[in-house]
């Protein structure tokens, strides 16, 4: 007979309830039993778990007749459509089949029309993504002013950084501000962002990803 694989204490400890209820497979059972032989903590715990199992098993049974419940279930079943061979997927699939054909035909027609439509010429210089930093967007910053900042204070702040509002405010109070008529260098732009970030009249400032309004 081969010796069962040694089991660590915590794993054996965790498995004790299922040693007690007899549902561990033979390998786990042998390994836990071997550990229990040498571990006083697990032996004590095993005793407690046996008490617990006995106590749970002795909890009073609920003596309620099933008849009333069954009558209620019958009433609910009478109000429920009967189970049929094709009720589940077959029924739904059959019901949806005409819609599926119509949808497929519509998609095919749309694809054909798109194929016939000539694509517009794209100027490579104008093509960009959000990750593309253009000369214009590089000179824009987003600014959200503090709630108590007056229009005069906003104008004064913008004058300090040679900025002009080109869009906004958005629904969240964000303005797009162009710096130095778009001629500021990246270093200057970052310096201005740092300068505004320390001003209490500004809640948020950062380089803009927004495109210029037309």
């Amino acid at each position, binding site marked *: 007979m081969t010796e069962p694989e040694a089991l660590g204490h915590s794993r054996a400890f965790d498995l004790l309830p299922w040693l007690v209820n007899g549902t561990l497979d033979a390998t786990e059972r042998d390994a836990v039993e071997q550990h229990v032989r040498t571990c006083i903590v697990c032996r004590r715990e095993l005793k407690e778990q046996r008490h617990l199992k006995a106590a*749970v098993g002795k909890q009073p049974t609920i003596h309620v007749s099933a008849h009333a419940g069954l009558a209620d279930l019958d009433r609910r079943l009478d109000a429920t459509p009967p189970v049929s061979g094709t009720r589940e997927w077959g029924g739904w699939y059959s019901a949806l089949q005409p819609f599926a054909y119509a949808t497929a035909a519509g998609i095919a027609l749309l694809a054909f029309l798109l194929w016939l439509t000539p694509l517009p010429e794209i100027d490579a210089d104008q093509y960009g993504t959000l990750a593309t930093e253009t000369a214009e967007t590089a000179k824009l910053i987003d600014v959200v002013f503090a709630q108590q900042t007056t229009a005069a204070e906003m104008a004064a702040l913008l004058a300090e950084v040679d900025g002009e509002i080109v869009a906004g405010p958005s629904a969240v109070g964000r303005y797009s501000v162009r710096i130095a008529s778009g001629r500021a260098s990246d270093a200057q732009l970052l310096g201005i962002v740092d300068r505004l970030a320390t001003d209490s009249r500004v809640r948020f400032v950062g380089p803009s990803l927004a495109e210029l309004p037309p």
Partner: protein
Amino acid sequence: MDQELKRPSRARFSDDNADVALLERVASGDREALRDLYGTYYHPLLRFIYRITGRLDLAQEGVNDVMLVVWRSSRSFGRRSTVSTWIMGIAYRKALKLLAASRRWTSRVASDPIEDLVERSPLGAEHSDDDDLRDLLDEALRHLSAEHRAVVELTYFYGCSYEEIAVIAACPVNTVKTRMFHARAKLKTLLPALGKGPL
């Protein structure tokens, strides 16, 4: 090892082959088969849902909710588990939903601290017997979370393996072991009498 560690027969309340045969008939719309299944599962389900919700009216409602799901979903039973595990899984989810919909019981229990019961009980004075322990356990279990209570109940009353409980509770087996670990720790605190006695 001593004889007490040998595997006892499992506390199952149904025969899976018989259950599968009944479920196949239910799937074909046989109401009589559903009634037979109802008769087999009524009391196990009633107890289980009662243990989770703590309310008999919810348990009675829950049993019929479960059997309605069985009626409607019998065709989707894929034999990935026993019928009893499948049905207990439905009952577990239904009981948690019923409990969530009615937290009145929880607040009632929370107003009755178990620590006070321990102090008042003869167990606190180390004069325990099985009846006292059973009654106190009933109260102590209500102070566990529903998920922890379910694991204790499924392990020690229904004789489920941790794999079966994982299927019923739709969680990993390690979660089952962790829930049982925490339930044991809390019960140990609430029920010092568990460590006493001749076993």
